[in-house]
Structures are given as C-alpha cells and as structure tokens.
C-alpha cells in the first residue's frame, strides 16, 4: 500500500510576536514546526506502515528551507520525501496550491492521501478538499481515528460539532486529520543517522506538466489586499463593582468583542 502524506512547514504561531510600532508580525526568529495536524496524520501513516508494510511518502510544497522538516520526517520513518519548490509556485492561494500539489501527485502511486485538516498559518482548511477534487477522488475531512484499513477500503471516525460519524470509503481517497488523532513519535537514533543519507527529491516547475496560469501568486484568484494585526490588549483593569454591574460588564465585553453572537 502507498500512503502519501501532505505536510506543511509553518511558523510556530504560539511564539509569534507583534511589532508594536509597525503593527506587523515579527517573523524573523520565529521557530518553524511541522504543522501539528499533518504530523499527527503522518504518525497514523507510520502506524499503518508498522502493521502492514506500507510505503510512506511525504510531500510538501515550500521554499528550500522546508528540507529541514523533511529530514526530520525521514528520521521518524518516512520512506521517501519530495519537496515541490520553485519561485513560480510562490505566493499561491489554496486553489493554486492544490493545482500544483495535484499535478505532482498525478505522477505518483498512491492508495491513501493524508492531509492535515488545517495549517496553523494560513488557517483555511481548504487545501485537502481542493486537492481531492483536482484528483477526482473522494474525501473525508475532520478524521479523528482510522478504525480499519485494507488495500481496498478505509473506515474512519469523523468528528462533527457534537457527534461523530463512522464513514467507510473505497481507496484511493483523501482524508484530513485532526491533531488529536495520534501523538507523533520521536525521531529514532538510527533514523537520524539514516536521515542524512536519504535523498530529498526536488520537483520544480519544469518537472511537471502544468499550465503556468493556474499556479503561484499570479494564478491565484484570491488576493490579499491588506493585512493588519489586532489591537494589543490593555493589561489588567481590576474593578470592584457590585455583582450585578460586574455581570453586566462581563456580558458587554463578550458581546462587544463578538465573542458571542445571538
């Protein structure tokens, strides 16, 4: 069985600071990590491999720095890692990203594709389903457990707002995983030493058959007009009021900040 895992290297958004002067994100010095949902999905792929002898291929589109993530994935047990990287692919929105990923995936053998539900930087949760659509295969999103997998089909548990669904689907298919699906393993010592012997295959624009008008910043239908940061919050007003006024103030705060709707 061939399992393809889509992973994205992302800035650790919990470490992100805002430049108070310019109101922009300070990105330099922010550590990068493998997107948590993707890493959990990768762990599931490794577990299937441990049980059934599957081949696990990791695929990422990103700048050359993403190689450091792929080395780690080798150290954890990936069989093959592919970096899709070309200045022409840069600045892509999710549509252009999925066009590119799908064009590469079409050149590979796969039974199951695992993507993360959502990347913590772009935060759209769109690349998985859009890639499935471009490949013309079925999808199951928000997967919280893989209950059964054979060469022919997969049975999973999908998390909804306040219930779960058990769904079954023939392969090939794409699933998107939640970070709660599995705790990723550590890199093994043996894995780390092997990781540097292994090749990272780099795929550029010239290696695939794709219309240049559907990729990268230029090919992206959505454009970011402007970005801004939220106002930094004031620290600690401590108020001593009667209980009723206190309650009212708290509720007003929740409403004013749109934390609750009607």
């Amino acid at each position, binding site marked *: 069985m061939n399992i393809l895992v889509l992973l994205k290297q992302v800035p650790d958004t919990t470490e992100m600071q805002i430049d108070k002067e310019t109101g922009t994100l300070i990105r330099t010095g922010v550590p990068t990590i493998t997107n948590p949902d993707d890493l959990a999905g990768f762990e599931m792929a490794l577990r299937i491999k441990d049980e059934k002898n599957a081949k696990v291929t990791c695929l990422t589109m990103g700048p050359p720095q993403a190689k450091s993530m792929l080395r780690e994935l080798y150290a954890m047990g990936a069989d093959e890692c592919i970096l899709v990287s070309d200045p022409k692919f840069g600045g892509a929105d999710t549509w252009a990203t999925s066009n590119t990923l799908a064009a590469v995936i079409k050149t590979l053998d796969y039974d199951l594709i695992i993507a993360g539900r959502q990347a913590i930087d772009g935060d759209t949760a769109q690349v998985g389903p859009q890639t499935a659509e471009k490949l013309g295969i079925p999808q199951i999103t928000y997967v919280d457990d893989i209950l059964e997998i054979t060469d022919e089909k997969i049975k999973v548990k999908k998390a909804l707002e306040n*219930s779960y669904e058990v769904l*079954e689907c023939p392969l090939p298919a794409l699933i998107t995983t939640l970070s*709660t699906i599995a705790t990723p393993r550590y890199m093994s010592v043996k894995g780390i030493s092997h990781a540097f012997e292994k090749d990272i295959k780099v795929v550029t624009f010239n290696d695939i058959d794709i219309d240049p008008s559907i990729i990268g910043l230029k090919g992206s239908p959505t454009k970011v007009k402007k970005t801004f940061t939220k106002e930094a919050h004031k620290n600690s007003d401590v108020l*001593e009021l009667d209980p009723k006024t206190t309650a009212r103030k708290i509720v007003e705060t929740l409403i004013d900040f749109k934390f609750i*709707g*009607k």
Partner: protein
Amino acid sequence: MDIKEYKDIYVFCEEKDGAINDASLELLGEARRLVENRPQLGYKVIGVAIGNLDEDLINEIGYHGADKIIWLYNKDINHYSTEIFTTLFVDEVIKKDKPDIVLIPATVMGRDLAPRIAARCDTGLTADATKLEFDPENENSSLLYVTRPAFGGNLFGTIVNETKRPQMTTIRPGVMEKLPKDASRQFEIDKREVSIVNINDPVKLVEVLPRDHMAVDITKADIIISGGRGIGDNFHILEECAKMIGAEVGASRGAVDKGYIAKDHQVGQTGKTVRPKVYIACGISGAVQHLAGMEKSDFIIAINKDPDAPIFSVANIGFVGDALEIVPLITEEIKKYRERPY
C-alpha cells in the same frame, strides 16, 4: 467568464438536527445587510437548501431574510454527502443561476463542502471570514472585501477575488447577526426536483455516535469558563453559564483534586494547555502551574474575592467579587441578550 453576468448573494442553508442552523441564519442576516447597504446593485438574497427537508424549514429561510429559496429536492437525500451536494450545487445552481457571491457557514459541513465546490468551479474561496463589505472605494462595485484571521489570530487579512466568479466565502458561526424571525416576510420558493442517479458518492455513512461518547475536549473551545477551589461544589453554576454562552467548563487542579469536577477539565502544567478566545477564571488564585496552561488565551477575564490574587496579573479585566453571586447573574444577562427583541 463574463463577470457581469453574475449577480445576487446566495447563502447555503445547512440543516442540522431538524432545523436550519444558526450559522446559516446569521449569513442570511449578513447578506440582507449587504444588499440593503448597496441598493444600486439591485441584488437579491437567495437561500439554497438541499435535500428531503420539511417545508417548515424552507420557510424559516424566508422568515430570516431570503427573497427566494432554491430548494434542490430529492426524497432520497436524507443526509449530507460531499459528492452529491457539490455536484448539485455546481450543476443546478452555480451553472444555471450564476451567483456573484456564495456564502457558506464555516461549520464542519461547510468546510467540507465549500472548498470542493470552489475547486470544481475553479474560483477563489476565502476562509472563515469575520467581516464582509462591498468595495468601499467604488459605490457601484459588487467586489466583496473579506476580512479574516490567519496565523492563529495574530494577523488579519482583507482578501478579494477580482477575476473569478462566484466570489465564495465561508463565515465563522456566531460572528454575524441573524435577523429576528419575521413570518410576514414575502419570499418565493423555487423547488427543483433533482436527480441523483448519476451521482455516486463512494463514502458511506456506517453509524452516528452521539455526544455521550465524546470525552470533553476543552482545548477546542473558543470560550472556557473555569472554576477553582473558590467555586467549591457549585460547579453546576459554571455548567449552566457555559451552556448559555456556548462555552466549555475548565478547572484548576485545586478543584479537580477536591473532586469537584473530572480531570478532563483540568487546565495547567499537568492538565491541558488551552488558548481560547476568552478564558474566564472564577475563584482561581492563579498559581504559576495554572497560568502555564492558559496565559496565552486571547482575552482573560478573572473573578476573585481577593484583590491581590495573582490571576489578576494575567487578566485583561479583573473583577473583585464573589463568583458564586456573579456567575448566575452572567447566565441571566446572556439569556436576556439572546432573547432580546430587535
């Protein structure tokens, strides 16, 4: 693609547990606000519903702001299917009616469906919008400016799609305001019998597991109301409040160790690390081990009897007072807010 052929705002209306969910009704309210603020466009609000639904539900869509409802009806569509809903929405609505704007709630279903539809139509999709407005620089334009958070809420971006139609967006539940139900509103129902014999969704629903099977996962909550030893064995007060707000209940280890609440709820170094939009700490002193699990929350509200409690040092607003008195009043205030007439 001739962009000028595309018009009106279409809202996908999701049925959930026998009702049109609030997330969809909120979008109808927002769509009305948009069209009324730019009457020169002459746009209508059109609700889209799919499946073997009760006629009452279809009417709800009209009562909450739609001028017309396109109802794709087939008696055999009794639950959501990615492939069936995508194909019907694209073939029976987008290709035939040419919507300028399509709004879809960013629920689990909406986030499964919207990217699939957008990819099939080769159009852009903006995720999880928190604000919508028409091009502020051109009063005759129907170009939608969509504002949304990214980078874990650290950054906001305003996104436009100038080249492709429809302009598609998903919108977070609870952000927009629904209109009060108005049963005297006039609207049209365009019921279309659709065939699904040629649509094959290989994904099969085996069973639905109800909520009881779920362990509490406070890490996914947008709002957490947490209690400490100061709450004593009155956690039901927090639970009632949480239900009214739409929050989960968290706790300090102090409260868990005393047996006031299960360990699943514990926040902190040896509990869960949470990062909700709002964290409300009630009767929690604010020991470093507790702060470690919640200080990254976007907004922190603290209630404590002791004006010198360390929890106040991380709070955005602190209130000195008796949580046992205040929390039930919050519940009451929110209930009033939710039931307020317009």
